[in-house]
């Protein structure tokens, strides 16, 4: 379950432009698609497409205000990445302990 969630987040953030958009939102707070387009250096349709992917991974949320749509980051959605690092970090450290004792048992 965790890995599936992590998978969505990883995939969404695999693209550097999407990562930049997410980073921009996390740093500067809520912004419109127009403002994001100015800083992203790609076309507005491209930005919108990236936002859709980020939305699907629940990395951003949006609200409509008249003709403008405002986006903001949901940093809590990064939790699966943090969890993944924690889980695998513990896994590998424990396995390396076992490797250590195996090496001691092995012939030189």
């Amino acid at each position, binding site marked *: 379950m965790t890995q599936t969630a992590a998978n969505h987040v990883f995939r969404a953030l*695999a693209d*550097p432009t999407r990562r930049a958009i997410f980073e921009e939102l996390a740093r500067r707070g809520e912004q419109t698609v127009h403002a994001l387009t100015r800083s992203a250096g790609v076309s507005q349709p491209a930005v919108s497409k990236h936002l859709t992917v980020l939305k699907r991974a629940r990395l951003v949320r949006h609200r409509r205000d008249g003709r403008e749509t405002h986006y903001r980051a949901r940093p809590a959605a990064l939790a699966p990445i943090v969890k993944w690092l*924690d889980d695998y970090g513990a896994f*590998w450290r424990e396995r390396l302990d076992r490797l250590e004792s195996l090496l001691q048992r092995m012939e*030189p």
Partner: protein
Amino acid sequence: MSNVAEAPQTLVVERAFAHPPEKLWRALTESPLLAQWLLNNDFEPVAGRKFQFRREPMPNWNGAIDCQVLVVEPFKRLSYSWGAMGLETVVTWTLTPVEGGTHLRMEQSGFASDQDRAYKGAKYGWQNFFNGLERVLGALL
């Protein structure tokens, strides 16, 4: 140790062993030895070969980790893909001889690394992705 700030989806674990690289290489590449410290497997140190590691089954997962050998450089470097529950990663072992033993580095990186390589020099890489987000992450950790 994992280093979230530098690369959020690359996990690095390093350790020094008081054993020569040749011995570590055996433990990393001989299937029965590998099973003793890592996981049951049908590994063979042949580039391109597909194999599986087996973890304890969990609800909704039979415990199979689908792998393919990517790099075999005897006594130096071993790399294989590591796919579990739809998440494709790459595990790379690097052995460096040091005074009185071997320095072993395990790196597990997410599937975005290929794209990152293609974007090398791009303004936003994983390297600096979290630098500006430490505050945000601090709240999560």
